[in-house]
């Protein structure tokens, strides 16, 4: 239970959470980890927003039985290279900036467009909503799916969305007009659970409850290749940044790495505990994969050597496919994540191609940036980890995505809202000074990365009481 510090508990009570900018609190680093008081929820949750009738949903439930109480990770986890410490912000302050309401049911996934201008969210209410990332203005509601939508993906040029639904189809949407492309991608025999665009936008990979991974040709809306991937529902798929590899994961506990060109399995990653894997993502540089498992762990794998090299804990993940992402922070935080191998630039001016060669400004020396890993949690928190410090700090939710260039996070949860979090630079600077002083006084102290007040799921009334009783 004690993931949440007392302050956080209070901030999260009832309806007072997350509204005013002042309501966030800094959180002390060391969350005590006792055993989890996992209370099996009897609510009619749709798993990841899907319309699955209750009872069938508990595909994830098995995870809770095999769950071991998490070890206190290695006490002084402070092995970040000292050379990096001076410029490194010791804490991140994400303040709630926007709450986007409109979905009638749980929101299963939320994604920033690659150009950072839009946010798309998909929900069990069979709709996708597109919002302006800056103002939060609602732009479009995309309707055509006949069942809940579990997953969305932006095309690399930010013009198209792909969505996978429990109606077994994948649809492509023109974001500008808000209309569905007339040919859905049909072929899966069961709920589509995860989709990802290739970096060039010419292919889509999808994972489904039919245990297969399909690779689609976007242009013709036809299946290019089917991979007999897994022995249980496929819960996550992702493309590596140059598009040559695909990662898939499944409830059978395996993560597989596939060669896009030949469709062959190149690696299988499996952890000893064999916990169901519910999400997988390549790191921005493509060297690692990050996998969510239903033993409340996030593991970073070196897939080339086939080893799990980091385990991130602190969140609660026993039932849902939680969302998460890699993000960046640091002095040069306007520096984007490493772009996909070929950065699409459709909007550059055409002068160069009309004979007047314009010297294109080369990407300047990249400012220093640090990575964080963000994940939702079933107790309503959002957690950010420094990839090199395996301690969890905080906590919430089904969908999390980081802005490609700015310190902005967007999250979505079962309460049907989408929330935008902006990094508070002033507070961070203030805190950085203090932290620097403190650092001098007390070296080797683990520092909290993030404080985020809890966006409480509406369904969390029940949970709140759980917390209270647990606390009491």
């Amino acid at each position, binding site marked *: 239970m004690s993931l949440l510090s007392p302050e956080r508990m209070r901030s999260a009570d009832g309806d007072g959470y997350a509204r005013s900018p002042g309501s966030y609190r800094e959180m002390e680093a060391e969350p005590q980890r006792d055993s989890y008081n996992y209370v099996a929820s009897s609510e009619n949750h749709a798993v990841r927003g899907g319309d699955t009738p209750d009872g069938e949903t508990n595909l994830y439930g098995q995870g809770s039985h095999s769950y*071991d109480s998490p*070890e206190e990770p*290695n006490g002084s986890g402070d*092995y*970040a*290279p000292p050379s990096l410490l001076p410029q490194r912000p010791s804490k991140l302050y994400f303040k709630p900036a926007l709450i986007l309401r409109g979905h009638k049911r749980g929101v299963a996934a939320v994604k920033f467009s690659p150009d950072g201008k839009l946010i798309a969210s998909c929900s069990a209410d069979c709709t996708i909503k597109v919002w302006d990332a800056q103002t939060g203005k609602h732009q479009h509601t995309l309707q055509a799916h006949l069942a809940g939508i579990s997953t969305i993906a932006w*095309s*690399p*040029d930010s013009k*198209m969305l792909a969505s996978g639904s429990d109606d077994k189809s994948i649809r*492509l949407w023109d974001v500008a007009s808000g209309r569905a*492309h*007339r*040919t859905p991608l049909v072929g899966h025999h069961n709920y589509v659970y995860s989709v990802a665009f290739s970096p*060039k*936008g*010419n*292919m889509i990979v999808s994972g489904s409850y039919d245990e297969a991974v399909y690779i689609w*040709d976007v*242009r*013709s*809306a036809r299946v*290019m290749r089917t991979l007999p991937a897994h022995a249980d529902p496929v819960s996550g798929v992702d493309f590596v*940044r*140059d*598009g040559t*590899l695909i990662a898939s994961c499944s409830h059978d506990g395996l993560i*597989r*790495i596939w*060669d*896009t*060109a030949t469709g*062959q*399995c*190149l*690696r*299988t990653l*499996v952890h000893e505990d064999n916990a169901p894997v519910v999400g997988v993502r390549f790191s*921005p*540089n*493509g*060297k*690692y994969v990050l996998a969510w498992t239903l033993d409340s762990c996030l593991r970073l794998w070196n*897939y080339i050597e*086939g080893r799990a*090299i*980091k*385990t991130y804990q602190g969140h609660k993940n026993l039932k849902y496919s939680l969302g998460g992402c*890699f993000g960046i922070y640091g002095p040069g935080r306007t520096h984007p994540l*490493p772009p996909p191998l*070929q*950065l699409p*630039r*459709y909007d*550059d001016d055409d002068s160069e*191609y009309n004979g007047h060669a314009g010297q294109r400004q080369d990407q300047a020396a990249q400012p220093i*940036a*640090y*990575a964080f*890993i963000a994940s939702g949690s079933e107790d309503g928190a959002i957690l950010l980890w420094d990839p090199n410090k395996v301690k969890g700090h905080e906590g919430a939710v089904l969908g999390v995505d980081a802005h490609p260039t700015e310190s902005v996070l967007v999250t979505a949860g079962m309460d049907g809202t989408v929330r935008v979090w902006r990094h508070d630079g002033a507070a961070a600077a203030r805190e950085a000074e203090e932290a620097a002083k403190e650092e001098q006084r007390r070296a080797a102290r683990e520092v909290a990365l993030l404080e985020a007040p809890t966006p409480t799921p509406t369904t969390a009334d029940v949970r709140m009481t759980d917390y209270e009783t647990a606390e009491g």
Partner: protein
Amino acid sequence: MNLSLLDPFVLAQDLPEALVGRLRSGHSTSIQFSHRGDYLASGRLDGVVIIFDIETNGVARKLRGHTHQVQSLSWSANDRCLLSAAHDWKCILWDLKDGSRLRTVKFEAAVFIAELHPKNHFIFAAALFEEQPMLVDMTGDVPIKRTLPTVPRRTEAERETISEKQAAQDAKQTTTVIAFAPSGDHIYTGTNRGWVNIIATATRQTLYSTRVTNNILVLIRVAPSGRSAVINSTDRIIRTLHLPDLSGDSGNVDFDNPRLVEVEHKFQDLVNRLSWNHAAFSSGSSGEYVAASTFMNHDIYVWERAHGSLVKILEGPREELSHLEWHPCRPFVAAVGVDSGRVYLWSILTPQRWSALAPDFVEVDENVEYVEREDEFDIQPLEELHKRRLDLEDEHVDVLTVVEPAADHANGKAAGAGDASSARAAAAQFQMPILLDIEQSDSEDEVIAVGAGQFRRKSPGQGREWMAEVGDVVAGSGAGMGANGSGTGTPLAGASGDEAGGGGSVGGGRRNGGKRRRE
């Protein structure tokens, strides 16, 4: 990023093995890989240019503007622009961002080959039918055409001794093939009398000439390194040439040295006396292998250049193959079928490694005695294990820094050119937009479904409505076609000596003529 996971034996393979796929959209007549190797441009008999995405084997773009068979295609260095030359005496420069026509250049004769300058996509060189070759500058809206010389450059001594007849013959030559050196500063041309000329792009003066054969040259290609070329001629021999290093200051090159360009290998089939339709260097900057498609035969021959020996014969479909292209960075060959107009693809076959499917499986060549570890079956407390596992996780990870593989395969060709970095930077920036429903727009397939299992051939004019907007072309098309018919065979008929069995199909006559011209 997949290189570190692939079987090194598969990676070490540099020759394609087997027919792995085919592409179809109309009747293709000429093909060209983009520099990055992710697209294949295909020019069709009906003048439409198709861009295939070879990752998906689907059509990425259709470019409509020619009214007759497309003869040659050339990509700009950043793969954003494509120059197409067709039998309608036109060259069109396309912008693949939106499929628009940036420039249209008309000639007074049919175009054999038009190749873009490697660094400036507003300059191209063209070899014309029975005309002097041209260097065209399209920077302005009105293209500036400059004539390139064909007459070989004779040394002083030769000039004095040359007979009048010879001089007259020199003057009568026409340039049949043309190619840029990778730097773009020089142009290699070949004539119908077997001469190879080196022409300076800036001054348009012939710097050097040598005669490699007495027959017509029908193909010249320069390897990305610029140090070798492959030449096909009508004497049934494919020659590879050593070229001088022209990339640096060309002042150092002694153009008076008669042995500046030398024949390295002569590839021929002495037994079957095959003649060759088309040839290509293998991937990589130097072109270790040479592949050639055969006339009146279904196979592709592959020779290696170190010893000049035949290393492979790729068996193909039951069809003669004409235009042949080797992928710029993979053991992957594409060739056009003469009769069907399909594009056939050869590549390597990669077997699934079963050990990849189960991480605790290992593939061993022979039986191995298993020695158990000392503590393998010890019972250890679960928490202890868990803790130990977490303690091991003290590795520093960097999830952001991108480490590019040392040998960047994807840019093999660009890297071979002198300006590796700039070409790569430019290439890295353009990405073709993804068009949906492009295949449904495939209205010019000759056969259309009219019911369950029933098909009929489309009426000739159908699906060509777009031509109306071309306007002037409609009027000129008849004349163009006539010249086409009469002109096509004349210079090269003896050359390839082929009359491909009369064709038999509706488009047969035109097709054969077209094919020969490209060869």
